[in-house]
């Protein structure tokens, strides 16, 4: 273990030392991959799972670096300010790259500061209530919010997280004009705590990645009332957003992708598109990710950029309409 750490450290050191020497063929040395969230989280596990096939594709070691804090901002800033030589890349996530930019005015970066080389994972979002709750469907939930404003609450993994926005967006789509006043947002620290809050009765409902809810649903502790994807999710006995006539909610999905700093060359971006293609066609990898409830779908660099910008715009419009933007 120690040797491994020292090895990683030496690798880091050698990266800084040899940086000025222009290489013949990219990549000729290890690549730093920044994970902007902590060990054991959804992003971390996704990143470390793809690291294995990705290393083979790249042909150079990938140094996985966790830089957590401030909702993914610290790691993102590290890559934003990194050299554009393609040796420092980021595992970008829905929270750090579409929700946070939409919600946080003080965020030190924008989407423009990054060059996306590919989104490789989509996480469907599901909404759920406690299994013994009297709420059996979205219609029940909405009528309860309308009947007694302020009594229904939803939990999230923190201010500016996807869960925070998701709760508000779902209620808004279902005709609640002012979801922030009609329902109470209870921020917890982390996704696990947010799901537990619904289980304990601290909050009424939660909208989050289906993978975070899968075991609770399977164990009949939570009851799913909607999934946001167009297709049903295996194991979730709930209508889709399309079934319920709210196709806009399809935009509400989680994702993980790889990005470099703005100005990274076309050549490197193209190469990474190829690496990701090779990695995501690895059967073992797909099997592992699907076991966790993810959908593996690789987007080309341009498609990724458009997808993220599109999601950002929808989120931003909602944030502005509801006055959710955090200024201080």
């Amino acid at each position, binding site marked *: 273990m120690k040797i491994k750490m020292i090895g990683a450290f030496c690798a880091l050191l050698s990266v800084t030392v040899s940086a000025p020497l222009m290489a013949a063929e990219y990549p000729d040395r290890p690549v730093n991959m920044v994970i902007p969230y902590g060990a054991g*989280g959804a992003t971390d596990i996704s990143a470390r799972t793809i690291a294995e096939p990705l290393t083979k594709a790249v042909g150079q070691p990938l140094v996985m670096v966790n830089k957590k804090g401030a909702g993914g901002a610290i790691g993102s800033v590290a890559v934003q300010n990194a050299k554009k030589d393609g040796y420092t890349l980021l595992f970008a996530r829905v929270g750090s790259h579409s929700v946070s930019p939409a919600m946080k005015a003080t965020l030190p970066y924008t989407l423009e500061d990054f060059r996306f080389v590919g989104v490789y994972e989509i996480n469907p979002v599901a909404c759920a209530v406690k299994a013994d709750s009297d709420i059996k469907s979205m219609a029940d939930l909405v009528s309860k919010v309308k009947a007694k404003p302020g009594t229904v609450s939803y939990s999230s993994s923190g201010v500016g997280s996807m869960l925070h926005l998701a709760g508000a967006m779902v209620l808004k789509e279902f005709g609640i004009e002012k979801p922030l006043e009609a329902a109470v947002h209870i921020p917890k620290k982390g996704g696990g705590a947010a799901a537990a809050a619904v289980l304990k009765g601290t909050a009424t409902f939660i909208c989050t990645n289906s993978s975070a809810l899968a075991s609770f649903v399977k164990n009949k502790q939570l009851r799913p009332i909607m999934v946001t994807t167009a297709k049903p999710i295996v194991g979730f006995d709930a209508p889709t957003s399309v079934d319920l006539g709210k196709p806009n909610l399809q935009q509400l999905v989680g994702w993980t992708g790889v990005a470099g700093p703005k100005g990274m060359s076309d050549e490197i971006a193209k190469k990474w598109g190829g690496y990701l293609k090779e990695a995501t066609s690895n059967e073992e990898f797909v099997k592992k990710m699907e076991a966790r409830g993810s959908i593996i779908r690789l987007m080309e660099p341009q498609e990724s950029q458009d997808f993220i910008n599109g999601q950002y715009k929808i989120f931003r419009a909602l944030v502005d309409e509801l006055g959710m933007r955090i200024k201080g």
Partner: protein
Amino acid sequence: MDFLGDAFLQNIMAGFALVANVESIAALGIGVTVGVIAGAIPGMSATMAVALTLPFTFSMTPITGILLLLGVYKGGIFGGSIPAILIKTPGTPASSATVLDGHPMAEKGQAGKALGMALWSSCTADLISNLSLIMFAGWLASFALSFGPPEFFTLILFSLTIIAGVSGGSLLLGFLSAAMGLLLATIGLDLVYGTGRFSFNDTNLMGGLNFIAVLIGLFAIPEILTMVWDPSPKTEKRTKLGDNWVTFKEYKSCFKSIIRGSFIGVFLGSIPGIGAAPSAFLSYSEARRKSPNKENFGKGEIEGVAASEAGNNGVAGATLIPLLALGIPGDVITAIIIGAFMIHGLQPGPLMFVTNGDIIYGLFMGMIISSIFLFFVGSVAIRAFRFVADIPRSLLFPTILILCVYGCYAVNNSIFDVGVMFVIGWIGFVMLRYNIPAAPFLIAFILGPLLEDNFRQAMLMSGSSASILVRGPITWFFWTLTIITVVAIIRAGIKNSKTTAIE
């Protein structure tokens, strides 16, 4: 969940069959060894060790992989006590309380005794924690479910009374120290509004101060600065292990505290979101309160070491209660372990007892075996680290400094954290020179945010009505405990000031 009867026995046998093979036993052995070594390196916490081990488990069978992770976890929690005792630097946050009496014992030349007691106490607590998991998982899990924000708030409020127990001579200085800890803990983003607090729009500060950086800064750096300040030690600190080994008599005399600490650990471990460090401190302060040698606590009392280590290892088995019975990870480490379950297509929760009962009982068996491994690996580790005690200070301290910088950097790969460590180190140095105790600082730093978050969540739940804070028997229980303790502290304070006045 019916734990008794034929099904229970059958599951135990099936579980035993799963564990009784070379791979599982080897995984446990390797896991505990890796954990002890990683825990013994300052800055390399048990959490990091488990996270780094995770990818290796992907290709193993579920039970082998999870046992490997559990071994690392348990080994790491014990391993942290080695540097806590020998060099006054907790190897993991959980062993912060061990510093309080462990290091003074080492200075008195009783390092071997302290380490031995830490090991015996850890193994006892580990065993009790595992047995509690097996026997009371269902009951404790339903208890944990009734812990919402209001209950949490009252529990943390009560836990803050620990500050009085670890303040040393002066309660006032203890409060001063705690206030500083609380203040620094507020740095970061506001929980409810997401706005910056003392962050000056600096991204690094928005993330708050890194706990490990604060921990190392508070304990290790001041020692090094003291050494730099005065390189010629007037009193050569003896940290030799010596022949001074812990005796069975001493173990027996601490037995009550160990049992108490174990159950505090089991209780706090089964509630998601608290962790091992508060449990160790609570166990320590309870042991001190009940001890006839109250005065000796903080000056090298062996019972203090026993209580702290029982408190933190008692958590290790119990954190699996919410994980297995409810599917809720209790802390960062179990969040990683739950990832390992899912990679193998296992979904922890009530149903898993039915669908994969053999795996659950296999884990139980494996955990019992891990306590035994911990004992042997720990004994070897203590003997190996004997050499640390013999290194001259002029070599040892620079080495510690390098380890601290490297460990602190490795937590989040951040140079900023290293800066935080040194700034806190200077604060700690000033505190040390003016006899301001460091432990209240640390406790406030850990508990302050928990107190605030749960209070505000409770207020959000109730629409700002304070009545939610007394909503049920659990809250009443902790309010009563808090009031009794505070009254006792005030009375002791008055008595103290009277006796000093007479003198």
